[in-house]
């Protein structure tokens, strides 16, 4: 089954372990839980070495989909095949899914209150700032390279200003960008 990510694991990790391990990860952070996944996998339970985690993470980021879900799928499959993937990703999503729906229901119940509406609007403004900051932080390492700046700018204009469908924008921009990366490879 596992000729996958680096070497065959000597550990026996059951589906229950996977479910519980990722259940805790799912509840431990706000606006992304990847650092907590690393801590659980590498430091606490030692299911992966630091190098293996980096490998899993880079594959998860390389493939489409929510990155943390991809991590749970890969780690789950590594230890317990398809059922392991299911156990890990269900564990990860179960509580956040229920909690966010409880919040949504509470909001729907109390949105007539000015305080609730005000709090929600302000949380949205602050969370928007966090997304902008994330984009700017990710942009910093690209700044030295002309084609990378141009591609990022193109992506921004296509999606934010022209409001193009993501599918068409990606089909147009991604091949050009990968070609630039290929030509400038070391």
């Amino acid at each position, binding site marked *: 089954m596992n000729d*996958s*990510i680096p070497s065959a694991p000597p550990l026996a990790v059951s589906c229950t372990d996977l479910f519980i391990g990722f259940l805790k990860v799912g509840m*431990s*952070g*706000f*606006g*992304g*839980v990847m650092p907590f996944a690393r801590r659980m996998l590498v430091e606490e339970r030692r299911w992966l070495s630091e190098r293996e985690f980096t490998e899993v993470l880079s*594959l998860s*980021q*390389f493939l*489409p*989909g*929510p990155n943390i*879900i991809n991590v749970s*799928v890969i780690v789950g*499959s590594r230890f317990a095949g398809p059922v392991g993937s299911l156990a890990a*990703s269900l564990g*990860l999503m179960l*509580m*956040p*899914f229920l*909690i*966010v729906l409880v919040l*949504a229901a509470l909001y729907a119940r109390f*949105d007539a209150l000015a*305080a609730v509406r*005000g*709090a*929600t*609007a*302000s*949380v*949205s*403004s*602050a*969370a*928007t*700032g*966090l997304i*902008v*900051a994330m*984009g*700017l932080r990710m942009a910093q390492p690209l700044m030295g390279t002309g*084609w*990378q*700046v141009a591609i990022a700018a193109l*992506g*921004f204009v*296509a*999606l*934010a*200003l022209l409001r193009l469908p*993501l599918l068409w924008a990606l089909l147009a921009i*991604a091949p050009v*960008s*990968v070609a*630039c*990366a290929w030509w400038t*490879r070391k």
Partner: protein
Amino acid sequence: MIPQVLLELAQQFGLLSFLAIGGVNALIPDIHRRVVDMEHWMTDAQFSQAFAISQASPGPNMLIVSVIGWNVYGFVGALVATLAICLPSSVLTYGVAHVWNRFRDAPLRSAIQRGLAPVTVGLILASGYVLVRATDSTWVAYALTGATTLLALTTRIQPLWFLLAAGALGALGVA
């Protein structure tokens, strides 16, 4: 008979699952385009509230999809939207993880990864722009977004504190 709107939810988010390079934060412009502009499932204000609710929950940052599904068709809608955004990419990931060793060190793989990085940055900045447009309408709101951006870039304060502080200011009617 499965309601038409559930099939549409599954179809819209199922496609987005394959387009989510750089995670769900990069999808926000296209989610907004589909959900607010095309399907009219939500207004700008509702979209902004869904974003706030998803950010105020612990867990992965793809929960906005669950809240949108909930708005469209209750619990079942939330379930369908969440499965649709997770399942297609998960199946792909499961398949690829097993053949990964063969092309782990291929130069094309690293070119793809390096090529997609700036695309992701452009998309996330676009997400920020779309959220500002959907969320901020008063100068206090703009100031709150600006201050959070600045502090998040220059300090190591945990993101949750920004949300708590903003929520408190908002509840008191200050911001």
